């Protein structure tokens, strides 16, 4: 749930020796820390600019639901980029899977659960199709997914015969618009949300504590106690604030639970699973990875299958939000997802980036979109500003690296 903290956990002032440790750690993840600070800055800026509308409970809910599909795509895209590839087809795949879901449910009357599972399977197959050409035949991913972009867009129009298909069953719509149901006595707040928030705080603190004690047990360097307490306090405060905000509206959106689950799972896989490490190694130096026993074809294939499934999920969420399968769904989504990954610290050449970073990058774009719309900036200027933000984020990183390299 830390994905949605609006305060950076580590921007507290610190004593000089701790500062040195922090700076060393921060430098490695400069763009991600920088973006966390930028995100906090944007939130504060628009909060003031919109006279407090930005952080109103209903707008926070809206912000999460509005950006969910881009964030889901960004989580997959950053993995593809870390592996040293790119996927231009996800926007079209979003449309295609949304169309297939509509055909299954609206035309054939399939219940929503099997339809959802089938849709995810379609995504997996689409990912496998592209992954096969990229991993086993060695065709550049740019080409394969450019072809996929055209192919899936065309297929969408074929499947829908140029028409929109609607409406979806309620259960399916809840994927994008639903909230966790209320239980228990009336407390002014949404009870399950408060409970979840509390659980999240406890779990996060437990994890922090256990990690620290394990590090100490292994005789490794840890954050100084004061700083660590500050970090824990910041995490707690952020989660509690978010939980209270959501609980005073309809509660936790279903899609947010979905995203938190994905973020935790994918983040953990990329950080600590053997296959995740292999993705970084492949993106960083393919030849060296191969000579160290990394099964490069299998890993690359798996990355694209994962991207396919995530694109399918995003497609379902988007279709559910629109409550229709439409031929024009998902236009330029691939570009938003790619931008989010790069803003969040991924590198063009591969081998660098984090799932968390991509989510932060996506939130930066999301807050920008939402904030600018609230203050009435036209979509024309919004595009210009988002373009400049992408350029500035990556430019800052390049500049910072060059300075550090001297």
């Amino acid at each position, binding site marked *: 749930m830390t994905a949605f903290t609006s305060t950076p956990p580590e921007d507290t002032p610190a004593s000089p020796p701790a500062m040195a440790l922090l700076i060393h750690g921060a430098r490695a993840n400069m763009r991600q820390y920088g973006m966390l600070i930028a995100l906090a800055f944007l939130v504060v800026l628009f909060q003031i600019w919109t006279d407090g509308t930005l952080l109103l409970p209903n707008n926070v809910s809206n912000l999460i639901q509005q950006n969910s599909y881009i964030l889901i795509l960004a989580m997959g895209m950053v993995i593809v980029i870390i592996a040293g590839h790119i996927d231009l087809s996800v926007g079209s795949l979003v449309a295609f899977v949304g169309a297939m879901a509509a055909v299954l449910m609206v035309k054939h009357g399939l219940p929503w659960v099997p339809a959802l599972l089938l849709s995810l399977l379609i995504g997996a197959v689409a990912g496998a199709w592209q992954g096969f050409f990229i991993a086993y035949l060695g065709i550049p991913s740019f080409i394969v997914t450019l072809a996929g972009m055209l192919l899936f867009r065309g297929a969408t129009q074929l499947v829908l015969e140029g028409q929109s298909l609607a409406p979806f069953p309620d259960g399916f719509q809840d994927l994008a618009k639903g909230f966790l149901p209320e239980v228990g006595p009336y407390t002014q707040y949404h009870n399950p949300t408060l409970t979840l928030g509390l659980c999240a705080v406890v779990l996060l603190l437990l994890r922090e504590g256990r990690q620290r004690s394990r*590090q100490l047990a292994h005789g490794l360097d840890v954050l100084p106690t004061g700083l660590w307490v500050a970090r824990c306090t910041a995490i707690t405060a952020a989660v509690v604030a978010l939980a209270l905000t959501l609980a005073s509206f309809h509660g936790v959106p279903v899609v947010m639970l979905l995203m938190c689950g994905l973020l935790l799972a994918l983040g953990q896989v990329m950080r*600590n699973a*053997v296959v995740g490490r292999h993705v970084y190694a492949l993106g*960083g130096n393919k030849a*060296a*990875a191969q000579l*160290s*026993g990394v099964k490069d074809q299998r890993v690359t294939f798996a990355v694209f299958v994962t991207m396919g499934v995530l694109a399918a999920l995003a497609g379902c969420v988007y279709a559910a939000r629109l409550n229709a399968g439409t031929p024009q769904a998902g236009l330029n989504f691939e570009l938003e997802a790619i931008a989010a990954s790069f803003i969040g610290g991924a590198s063009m050449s591969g081998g660098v980036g984090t799932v968390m970073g991509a989510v932060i990058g996506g939130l930066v774009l999301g807050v920008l979109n939402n904030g600018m719309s609230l203050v009435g900036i036209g979509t024309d200027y919004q595009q210009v500003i988002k373009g400049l933000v992408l350029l500035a984020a990556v430019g800052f990183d390049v500049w910072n690296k060059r300075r550090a390299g001297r």
Partner: protein
Amino acid sequence: MTRPAGEPGPVAGQPRPVLEMRAITKTFSGVTALSDVHLTVRPGEIHAVCGENGAGKSTLMKVLSGVHPHGSYEGEVRFEGEPVAFKDIRAGERHGIVIIHQELALVPQLSIAENIFLGNERRSARGTVDWNGTYREASRLLARVGLREKPQTPVSELGVGRQQLVEIAKALSKEVKLLILDEPTAALNDQDSAHLLELLLQLRDQGVAGIVISHKLNEIRAIADSVTILRDGRTVESLTVRHSPSAAPELSEERLIRGMVGRDLDHRFPDRTPYRGEDAGRIALAVDGWTVRHPADHRRTVVDGVSLTVRRGEIVGIAGLMGAGRTELAMSVFGRSYGQYVAGTVAVGGREVDTRTVPAAIAAGLAYVTEDRKRYGLNLLDTVQRNISLASLPGMRRSDAGRRNGVRGFVDEHRERRIAEHYRTSLNIKTPTVAERVGRLSGGNQQKVVLSRWIHTDPQVLILDEPTRGIDVGAKYEIYTVIDALAARGKAVLLLSSELPELLGMCDRIYTMAEGRLTGEVTRAEATQEVLMRHMTLRQMTENGS
């Protein structure tokens, strides 16, 4: 301190120096890279600059050539008697100072002629490229460097040695007066090196002064007229080499090493501790009839019926000239990572094993440390810790460790970090933390990271391909100590090297290869440079392996 006047040098009297660098001091954000460095190059001489990695050689050359612009350093540079202040490389080149970097700066897709005049194109009256003039002039330059290729040939078709010659032709096209070469022979075989050094001597006699940075002390002795030794960013001393027709140069390698490391290296190789296990002397690796074809050209047999053995606790060398097929042999044995397999078997510990893929080879107990650590060894973007663990990640899963969070397939980061710390201490890897990016480490420390990775896979057999290439003297000794310690623990070590003294100093037995075949097997007692060289240049030995 510079050499006082009146020393007997190759040039009679004391003519005005072509280059004088006085009291050069350069700092990088508080870290002093050069401190009060002096360098004087006399006309018509080749001046060697040597020192360990990090001694400041490259920084000094960057100051000289304008990579570090005037104003970013203190001190004075005088060229041909005039003070100069270069704001970039081009300004330096206009004065006739050209630097050729270790990594060649040629565009592979362009032709030789286009590369020579890249950025300096010959124009016709209409402003388009004057192709006739370009090719004519390129031919002339190629003849001057002794490269018999058409100027239209793409550079990608040339080997490294010839590309180096193109670089020199490019320098000559700029009316070079002072040519700086950074490790010019690092990537060259003996033949190409010899040719290059000969060319440098020719150019010197035509009035082109040269500064050569080199790790290869025998080369310095062979071509340098004087030597400046740097250590820790300071000038240690400048020495003159006396070349007289009858006597050998007075400057000994020991003398140079002493200057570079600041102490005597009586032993350039550590003393061996023999392996005393029960199974000492048992054959650990047996390769039989290994034959491999070239990956692209199926008619070319690159490795031809090679059979060899390495015993437990034994260090066995393979000597061979460039192109003899040493690396190709090693890489194809290790998971068939090179070429097309034709025939042959590998046995580890007496049992035939499957080495068809890299994971299979690792599982069979093999480890291969590449000759090119940047290309085939390291993920420079990632940390020391993760580079060490890469080949043994499945063994660092939590489920194997303590069943806490026993999710299969997940790495125990704390254990991983402890392992990395272990190697940092035991191999003396110089890095602030194991979370440092490997790309920021020096060559010697990077090599230790690669070694750590493979030691941690706990192999029976380590194949080390040029383990000390591009590494300074001090770090070399440390690497040798590690290799000896591995052998003392019963590992079988196969050492591929193009430095004969290294093989002679380290190995119990040495095989020689030429043109893909084994041409000899020499024991430590019999081995001398001459014996090895004779075997390495043999066209064919009496049918080996049959």
